[in-house]
């Protein structure tokens, strides 16, 4: 390929990588779709405790849909067709990427975080569902638009191969994707309603570890951790809960603020006052998640907590779960 291929691609920073890549690729193709809109239509919001699985030797909670789901649901509901490819051989993966760049086509890539050299060391864990756009090549360096970063960056051929072929859970296997066809006019109204209904269904699911019930479940576990696991492990677990909730990509409050932004935008677009009101309510619930994180951090900061303080943060979660139950019932009726 030519020594220099730079596609005219505009980088917009986003909170979350998956929404960000979709939003940026849509914008590149002339469709102005915000990050919250991708997140809402793709039913990104969730609460799920994943029993049996441990990451960093602590239980796993997710505040969002499984990697790739937001993207898949968004495409399906808006009628955008995506091409997705995985590779068993790094050479083929590279050749296909170069081919697309030469055709002036920026592509989305799924990558592992552990070997992403431009991330701070402290953030480099074995997490394989990160997303970025490659928009060109200069010499042997690929030009990267990583949506969580403020500015664009670059990776050498070897560095990019490493992150594309990271191993472990959700191994990317060179996963590459890009839109290939768009509907004549993007009809967001129906897609928004579908996205909202799907989220309400998940959050109100009659399953003990999902949605509102999942939040109660975690509250129950937090009450038991200090006695069952000892203070040290209990604090390690609690720290992980807060990290999952507030880590880079969540936009704050376990994605509740991004969702509130979506409801506000959707309410205006559909002329639905109820959604705008519910957006305010979601913001208040997001603030309660932040309060929970703050309170929890006081426990693991001091490292000498009383059982009482665990009960206190568990009470906060139970309260949030009660509010979200009412909230999602109202939201379901509002569309």
């Amino acid at each position, binding site marked *: 390929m030519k020594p220099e291929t730079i596609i005219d691609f505009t980088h917009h*920073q*986003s*909170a979350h990588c998956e929404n960000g890549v979709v939003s940026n690729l849509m914008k590149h193709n002339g469709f102005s779709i915000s990050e*919250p809109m991708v997140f809402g239509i793709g039913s990104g919001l969730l609460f799920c405790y994943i029993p049996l699985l*441990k990451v*960093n*030797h602590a239980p796993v909670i997710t505040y969002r849909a499984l990697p790739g789901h937001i993207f898949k649901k968004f495409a399906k509901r808006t009628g955008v067709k995506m091409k997705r490819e995985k590779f068993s051989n790094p050479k083929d993966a590279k050749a296909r990427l170069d081919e697309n760049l030469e055709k002036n086509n920026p592509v989305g890539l799924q990558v592992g975080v*552990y070997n992403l050299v*431009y*991330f*701070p*060391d*402290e*953030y*480099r*864990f*074995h997490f394989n569902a990160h997303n970025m756009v490659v928009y060109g090549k200069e010499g042997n360096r690929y030009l990267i638009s990583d949506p*969580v*970063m*403020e*500015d664009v960056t670059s990776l050498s051929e070897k560095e990019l191969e490493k992150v594309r072929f990271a*191993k*472990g*859970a959700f*191994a990317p296997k060179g996963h590459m994707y890009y839109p290939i066809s768009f509907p004549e006019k993007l009809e967001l109204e129906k897609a928004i309603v579908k996205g909202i209904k799907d989220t309400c269904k998940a959050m109100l699911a009659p399953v003990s570890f999902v949605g509102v019930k999942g939040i109660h479940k975690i509250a129950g576990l937090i009450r038991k951790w200090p006695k069952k696991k000892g203070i040290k492990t209990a*604090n*390690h677990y609690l*720290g*992980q809960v*807060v*990290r999952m909730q*507030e*880590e*880079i*990509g969540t*936009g*704050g*409050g376990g994605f509740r*603020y*991004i969702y*509130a*932004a979506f409801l*506000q*935008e959707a309410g205006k677009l559909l002329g639905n006052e109820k959604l705008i009101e519910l*957006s*305010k309510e979601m*913001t208040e619930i*997001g*603030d309660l998640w*932040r309060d929970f*994180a*703050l309170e*929890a*951090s006081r426990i*693991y*900061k001091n490292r000498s907590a009383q059982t009482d303080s665990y009960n206190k943060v568990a009470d906060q979660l139970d309260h949030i779960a009660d509010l979200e139950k009412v909230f999602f019932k109202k939201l379901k009726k509002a569309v």
Partner: protein
Amino acid sequence: MKKKEVPQDKSNLESANFRELCYAVNENGEYTTENSTGWEPKTVALNNAIEEIKERIADAKSRVIAGETSPIEYYMELHKMDVGILASYVGFWQWKVKRHFKPSVFKKLSDKTLNKYADVFEISIEELKSMGR
């Protein structure tokens, strides 16, 4: 969260010179975004998690020196891996990786097998073998 309340605490992001994006409402109640340098409650959680990893590395190191485990376990911890992740990188079953933790088994490993581990850890076979000696 209000835009002016988006926390600007010191955090580990500073080293990479970037700020993350948060969603918040402005004075008119409209949603907008604001960059954040960090928030203490999550910085403390991250720092604790890193402390925990450091303890695991130190513990593995002392067990290698005491002859209770092989250097493979030490390097696994050093790379923030667990047995499942390491197994998928080297292409062995988890039980096999665990067996390679036994110093007596490790001593008899072929160069071919050792090379797989050394490659993943980005060190030479010599470095892998010499640890703990």
